[in-house]
């Protein structure tokens, strides 16, 4: 375990908005191929931290290296090497499935041939080949989320950020989504995921829990439960966030 390659390395990261400290001295690493759960109450500072890790916002002080690049010095290099999807923003509703793949593949600089291959690969895998020319707005939410995940990894990023990817999704699709996460993590993709479903926290290799801008706990789900003397991740979360 000690020799595992770090894909994300955060050291004394601070982000302030005026007098308000949104991220208060965060230090943590995420390994290659790890499923890392990034939890916290609403307003704890998760979104701020994710924006920094994705190169969209610059830290006030401290350092973050993502996929080999310093987020402050090389934000665009970071963006090229990561994938991102969220419940709120993912694909374009007024484009077809194929067009969405084409659009995102193009943004990440894939050739026409590569885009076609990837599109075929993912649609076959999802058993959704017959939806190729369907406009996204007509596709059910659960399928959309699986497509969005596929699109977010079209350029084989080293790390993919999933921001509440399963919100509102039915319980079967939610589980299928996690099988996709496992499969890609096993192939070496690092998965950085936020969720409000505490059973999903159990699916992560390690979980960090933020409260008021700080990381209050970071460990495997089983160790967190032992350390806090409780039986479920829900109880761990409540002990820390309340």
């Amino acid at each position, binding site marked *: 375990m000690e020799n595992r390659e770090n894909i994300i390395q955060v050291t004394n990261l601070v982000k302030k908005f005026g007098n308000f400290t949104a991220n208060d001295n965060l230090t943590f690493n995420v390994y290659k191929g790890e499923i890392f759960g990034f939890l916290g109450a*609403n307003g704890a500072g998760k979104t701020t931290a994710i924006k920094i890790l994705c190169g969209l916002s610059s830290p006030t002080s401290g350092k973050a290296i993502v996929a080999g690049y310093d987020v402050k010095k090389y934000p665009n290099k970071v963006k090229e090497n990561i994938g991102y999807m969220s419940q709120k923003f993912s694909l374009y509703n007024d484009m077809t499935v194929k067009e969405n793949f084409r659009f995102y593949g193009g943004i990440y600089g894939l050739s026409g041939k590569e885009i076609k291959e990837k599109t075929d690969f993912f649609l076959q895998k999802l058993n959704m080949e017959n939806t190729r020319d369907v406009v996204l707005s007509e596709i059910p939410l659960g399928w959309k989320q699986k497509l969005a995940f596929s699109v977010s990894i079209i350029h084989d990023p080293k790390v993919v950020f999933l921001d509440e990817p399963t*919100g509102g999704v039915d319980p*079967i699709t939610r589980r299928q989504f996690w099988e996709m996460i496992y499969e890609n993590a096993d192939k070496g993709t690092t998965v950085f995921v936020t969720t409000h479903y505490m059973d999903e926290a159990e699916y992560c290799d390690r979980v960090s829990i933020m409260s008021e801008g700080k990381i209050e706990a970071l460990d495997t789900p089983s160790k967190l439960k032992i350390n806090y003397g409780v039986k479920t991740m829900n109880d761990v*979360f409540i002990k820390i966030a309340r």
Partner: protein
Amino acid sequence: MQMSVAVNIVNICKSYGDVEALKDITLNINEGEIFGFIGPDGSGKTSLFRILTSLIIPTSGVATVGGYDVVADYKQIRKTTGYMPGRFSLYLDLTVEENLNFYARIFNTSIEENYDLIKDIYVQIEPFKKRLAGDLSGGMKQKLALSCALIHSPRLIILDEPTTGVDAVSRMEFWELLKKMQLRGITIVVSTPYMDEAALCDHVALMQNGKLLAVDKPDNIVNKYKGNLFAVSTNNMHKLLTDLNNLKNTSQIFRFGETIHITSTITDDQLYSNEVYKHLEDAGYQNIGITRIKPVIEDCFLALMDKNVMS
């Protein structure tokens, strides 16, 4: 115990063009209870709530709320029912206090007149009453919306996914508020995609694709689960699901947090767990744990779901 009916829904259907959002919904909600509609996005919860609040008209069927017909008596419905829509719909450019005043005046009342009713909730946001609603955190917006839904002293409130996107602690606090509302005699109709919240309701309706999968007390739904449920854990949980797929006498296999739930189709629990143990031992697993457990609502939902038509 004889209960009076607060909401009566009979054969309600709603179509938008070719899309059937609600397919023949019939159920009753008792006065003074917390009734939960549990289901994923697209199951029809919002369409039903918009019918009950007189905001849209059903394609067919009838429904009454507090004895008033949702189509003919829409004015009475609006006077006696509070509604908290799924999307935050208060005025972002008004302050907390201005929003509440606005809603109070629309219903010809004042904050003072009904302060007692909203006190438990409003005290938590009162320190920020001069702040614009648009600058509130998610949890505070939710409390303001609930205050606004209650300000005209409704007999019944309808809350559309009040806890979606809300963290586990705020969700728990919100349910504590709902229990307080219930003690004041208000009937509470609430929808949620979180299956664990079903246990907090007096009755629940499980919904998928515009249809009711079950309507009952949460305990009764759990007790009707077919088959014996087991939780399995091993040293390798990633791979375990695949290796459980070819188990004999097994009807359902689903990940459930730190374990995988499997359902036995035979009555002999000892025989079944021995079979599972041997199967996993042969596959090279260690630290094998097999425990007979009681189902939760999510197990039941998974069993009842129409697996070919997912939302």
